[in-house]
């Protein structure tokens, strides 16, 4: 393993996620991220907040290598993402569970299959799939919806399917983009408790959210973005940004 300076190092000492002077300008000319440097260590629980359009989702897309940075380097699990070969990308993504802001469920498969798909991708045996998928769906409160299609779910239900899919493989890193945007406060808290538990078992959790109530209450590390620039990074922070 190589750290940022290129020296050999033990994995635990390395930040699991590191942005090194990263900028992203979209083809439309929008500068979504400007010169961002950021380190997140293994096992951390981090909130990313900031106003609409400040580059939070862009950050998640960069980590997943869905898009490429215009400048700078991104390291995940010690690997520099732009250097990954095409064939290495699936392995990189399998280590990361993601709840997308727009859910991205497979619309022609039912709830069970959507979650099971993540397991199939890592070639889990069928027996394990049949045990794990119902149990994770029960945790997000969707035991009764296993056989229905995404379009037959309410907004909040879809969001919870997306969360179940992100969690089912016990990922090393969990990225959740607005995972409670369509959930009522009670459901939101249940999900947050679930994520805290997952975090306690060792998963690094990064949550993008606008939910001031939750951020303020949980007293975790809070990274605040504005117009693509990191404007504050507090260890036990609250939802401070108000434009």
């Amino acid at each position: 393993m190589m750290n940022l300076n290129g020296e050999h190092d033990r994995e635990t000492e390395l930040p699991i996620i590191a942005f090194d002077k990263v900028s992203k300008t979209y083809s439309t000319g929008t500068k979504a991220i400007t010169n961002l440097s950021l380190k997140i260590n293994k096992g951390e629980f981090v909130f990313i907040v900031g106003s609409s359009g400040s580059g939070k989702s862009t950050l998640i897309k960069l980590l997943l290598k869905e898009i490429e940075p215009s400048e700078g380097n991104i390291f995940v699990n010690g690997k520099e993402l732009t250097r990954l070969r095409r064939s290495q990308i699936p392995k990189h993504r399998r280590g990361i569970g993601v709840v997308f802001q727009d859910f991205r469920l497979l619309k022609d498969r039912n709830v069970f299959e959507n979650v099971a798909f993540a397991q199939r991708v890592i070639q889990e045996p069928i027996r394990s799939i049949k045990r794990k998928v119902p149990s994770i769906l029960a945790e997000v409160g969707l035991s009764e919806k296993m056989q229905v299609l995404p379009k037959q779910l309410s907004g909040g239900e879809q969001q919870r399917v997306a969360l179940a899919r992100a969690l089912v493989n016990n990922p090393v890193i969990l990225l959740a983009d607005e995972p409670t945007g369509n959930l009522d406060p009670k459901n939101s808290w249940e999900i947050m408790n679930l994520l805290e538990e997952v975090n306690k078992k060792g998963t690094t959790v990064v949550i993008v959210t606008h939910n001031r109530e939750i951020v303020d209450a949980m007293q975790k590390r809070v990274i605040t973005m504005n117009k693509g620039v990191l404007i504050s990074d507090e260890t036990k922070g609250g939802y401070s940004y108000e434009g």
Partner: protein
Amino acid sequence: MRASSIGYSIKQGIKNIRRNKMFSLASIGTIMACLFLFGVFYFVLANVQYMMKMAETSVGITVFFDEGIGEAKIKDIGTEIKTRKEISSMNYISAEEAWKKFQKEMYKDDKDLTEAFQGDNPLADSASYEIYLNDVSKQDNLVKFIEKIDGVRKVNSSEVTAKGLSSFNILVGYVSATIIIILISVAVFLISTTITMGISVRKDEIAIMKLIGATDFFIRAPFIVEGILIGFLGSLFPLVVLYFIYNKIIAYITVKYKFNVLSNFLTFLDVKDIFATLIPISILMGIGIGFFGSILTVRKHLRV
């Protein structure tokens, strides 16, 4: 790859067809249409080729002998000619037979004219061998060979007909090749447009799979199973339809032209002979189109 993943790919492939019913039906339909047209042309061409072959064997050479030659000598000549491989059959026609045949062909039994020649055979010394060939294009060689035989006065080859037929044969060959090339191009083009449309329908799905960490192979496999199945299904229907159509059409034409000159030329290949070739070709084409079609589609997506 684990056994469970292989099973999953096959199951998903089958499920995909049911899930995207409209798209699957459309794809099957396109393949069906192409293979149906292909089948129709295969029928026409195979039969034309066959009829040509039949017609060829009725084009022959006539060999006349020196005046006053004896029967024994004529037999010897016959034996010598028969050594040649290009000969399919050979008949001896005496001077009397020749005259009768001439009258019939020329005057269509016009009695007035026939009477004019009564008792007098203007075609004396017209005894001949009629020779039929396997292959019209070899006629020239054979004629040269026979002309050199001692006792042969003249070899009368129907040059015009022979050349015409073998030219026509070549023409049919060119036309067949052209039509088949056009059809295959159209089929490939249509399949690729079908696939292009498939891209619009499946783009999002494949993008999501990739983001979840699925390998290229894992994404491709069910689509390829699906493609092969669609191709296979698409090839069956035209075969069944063509099978029943073929017999009906032949029966119809045969009855319709029974008492007609055309019936001489209308000899058809047996349905079994034609399907012995058509079935494997169609199925292989269907599966091939489905297989390559799906691979190309998914490849294109995976580049996203």
